[in-house]
């Protein structure tokens, strides 16, 4: 390897407490690049269809991209890929220094398999890896556990760990990095770590990531920074991060309220960016990223006075704000903090709370079943109590901790109608009715993550202006956003880069080539093909699990109930029509939603084409 890659990975067998250091395979890199691509390929090859995601047979891939740890901007990411708790192959990622630190310690990625017989953490330092006892930090909050493990190993180490929710296998438990401030949030990766008795991974490295051509890299980064600074959203994003979005999205009908009932919210003005900005006491960011979008907030008065925590991102502001009818911003900071400490995804947690509030309002769940008096819209104190019950699987929390789809099945009584999920994953902070290419991306992905398919076309009109309400041509736009995010996450990028269109595909290719010296990466078309290959492999994973067009769906509310608010008034999600358009754009069979043999062969996936024959 000329640069970008370290050239080594770790295979950790927790059952037999064995660690092996292996050489990176060139064909894997050429076809899947790194990050999400490498993760998806390994999980496809090594996790058999029908595997219980919370069994020792499931595996975790913790990976970086070739741009991680180089001077390229916005690539300080770490990706976790597994068969997610909802069942599809899923990649989730976080920013912060963990990714660069893993490469500095001498590894591009880690494959984790089996199950430890007792609480364990991995200690990885300068080319070595040990399994160590984690009994003393089992049951401990994520920030405190991170601090304890750093004090025991190296104060400059980076920690990825789970909290009590992961240990109790809450289905939407997160994996926290960055001292408990950043989350690999979605898909229940924390529950998978918990099922393996793996509390944490601690890394420390003093090595360097070489790049193939330093001069070309310097020039490409200079150009990248120039592009960022010219972008119309850059300054606002730099100053306010994702807080810039909340009120604006509410006004375009893209910020759902009351569990997607979309009624108007009183006092929504508290989400005005300049109001949220008042809580900011520190601006910071990931290594090698001039965006610096992260903020520390402090509460200095009222019942939550004394709390200082990471700024709740847009998704969290929605999850504990408009989606549960709550406009007390300080309580949103606290709810976000509690999720981080217990190690739970804020999006799914907020969605579960909204679902429960609606069931209580409709009388489907009684107060005695829930065990919390006054669990009604906007009651943040009741929401805090419910969050705790979920994290610790206490009372009704034990049912809700399985996510809205499974909870609705257990509760019955028509509860399924109010479970806002696709393929078992709770919907995030956008309304598919108000931006249809965005919704279509969710409906069709193996795991409808919040951040995949942000449709810049429909919202900001880049790289082309597309009417958000029209159905025509949305298959092509959804494919574009999915493929682009897949190759960007393979390279190691933060999803904000393709989402905002901060840089072009030519720029990505230039950086990829300068870092790795791999000539194929010089061509943007090659990278697009890698993205398409990753999406098709994710799809094939789902097909092997028995998924087809029937799983590409939307909650009934999104398909049947027109938005009542003035913004996006009357819009519904025209599911079947949009799906037809998408399968056509993808070259997949319209009837089944399965990639055609021709398409798979075109992407070099001949073995996958053969394997899928029996599912057609």
């Amino acid at each position, binding site marked *: 390897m000329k640069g970008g890659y370290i050239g080594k990975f770790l295979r950790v067998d927790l059952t037999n407490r064995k660690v092996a250091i292996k050489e990176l395979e060139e064909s894997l890199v050429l076809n899947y690049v790194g990050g999400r691509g490498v993760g998806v390929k390994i999980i496809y090859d090594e996790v058999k269809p029908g595997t219980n995601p919370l069994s020792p047979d499931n595996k975790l891939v913790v990976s970086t991209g070739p741009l991680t740890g180089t001077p390229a901007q916005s690539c300080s990411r770490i990706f976790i890929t597994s068969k997610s708790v909802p069942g599809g192959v899923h990649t989730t990622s976080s920013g912060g220094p963990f990714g660069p630190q893993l490469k500095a310690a001498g590894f591009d990625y880690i494959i984790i398999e089996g199950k430890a017989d007792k609480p364990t953490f991995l200690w990885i330092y300068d080319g070595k890896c040990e399994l160590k006892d984690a009994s003393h930090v089992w049951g401990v909050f994520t920030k405190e556990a991170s601090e304890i493990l750093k004090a025991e190993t190296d104060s400059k180490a980076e920690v990825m760990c789970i909290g009590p929710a992961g240990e109790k296998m809450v289905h939407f438990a997160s994996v926290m990095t960055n001292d408990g401030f950043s989350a690999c949030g979605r898909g229940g990766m924390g529950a998978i770590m918990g099922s393996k008795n793996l509390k944490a991974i601690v890394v420390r490295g003093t090595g360097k990531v070489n790049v193939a051509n330093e001069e070309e890299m310097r020039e490409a980064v200079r150009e990248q920074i120039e592009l960022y600074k010219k972008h*119309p*959203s850059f300054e*606002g994003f730099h100053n306010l991060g994702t807080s810039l979005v909340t009120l604006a999205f509410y006004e375009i009908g893209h910020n759902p309220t009351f569990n997607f009932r979309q009624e108007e919210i009183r006092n929504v003005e508290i989400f005005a960016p300049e109001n949220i900005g008042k809580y900011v006491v520190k601006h910071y960011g990931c290594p090698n990223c001039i965006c610096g979008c992260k903020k520390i907030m402090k509460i200095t008065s009222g019942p939550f006075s004394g709390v200082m925590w990471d700024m709740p991102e847009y998704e969290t502001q929605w999850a504990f704000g408009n989606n549960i009818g709550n406009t007390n911003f300080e309580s949103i900071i606290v709810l976000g903090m509690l999720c981080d400490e217990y190690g739970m995804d804020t999006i799914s947690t907020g969605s579960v709370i909204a679902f429960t509030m609606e069931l209580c309002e409709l009388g489907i769940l009684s107060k005695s079943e829930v065990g919390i008096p006054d669990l009604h819209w906007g009651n943040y104190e009741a929401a805090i109590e419910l969050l705790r019950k979920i994290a610790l699987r206490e009372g009704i929390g034990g049912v809700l901790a399985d996510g809205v789809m499974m909870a609705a099945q257990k509760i019955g009584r028509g509860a399924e109608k109010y479970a806002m999920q696709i393929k078992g994953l709770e919907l995030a902070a956008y309304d598919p009715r108000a931006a249809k290419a965005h919704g279509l991306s969710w409906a069709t992905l193996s795991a409808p993550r919040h951040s995949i398919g942000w449709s810049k076309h429909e919202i900001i009109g880049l790289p082309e202006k597309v009417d958000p309400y029209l159905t025509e041509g949305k298959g092509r736009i959804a494919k574009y956003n999915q493929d682009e995010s897949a190759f960007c996450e393979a390279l190691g990028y933060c999803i904000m880069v393709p989402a905002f269109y901060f840089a072009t595909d030519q720029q990505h290719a230039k950086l990829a080539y300068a870092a790795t010296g791999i000539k194929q990466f010089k061509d943007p078309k090659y990278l697009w093909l890698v993205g398409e290959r990753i999406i098709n492999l994710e799809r094939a994973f789902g097909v092997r699990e028995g998924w087809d067009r029937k799983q590409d769906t939307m909650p009934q509310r999104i398909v049947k109930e027109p938005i009542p608010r*003035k913004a996006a008034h009357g819009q519904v999600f025209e599911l079947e029509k949009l799906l037809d358009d998408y399968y056509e754009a993808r070259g997949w069979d319209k009837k089944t939603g399965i990639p055609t043999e021709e398409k798979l062969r075109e992407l070099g996936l001949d073995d996958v084409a053969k394997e899928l024959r029996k599912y057609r």
Partner: protein
Amino acid sequence: MITVTVKLIGDHKRKSATFSVNLNKEQSLGDLLKSLNLEIFKEDGGLRPDMVVIINGKNAHFLNGLNTKLKHGDVIVIMPIVVGG
């Protein structure tokens, strides 16, 4: 005479605000925006690239742009360009 509601969404420089404006019936979005005297135009008369104007939840670009005729009760939102979070 018609009345429309204008909502400005702030950022690190501008404050958010909501107010009503009375207009003659035939006035367009461009007329309204010019009368508000906000710093949202480029020298060539087009909108600045970091601003978006929404009429009743829909980007004015997909209506008739600055020539869109306004109706009584319209809600016009002027906001910084944002994509997701």
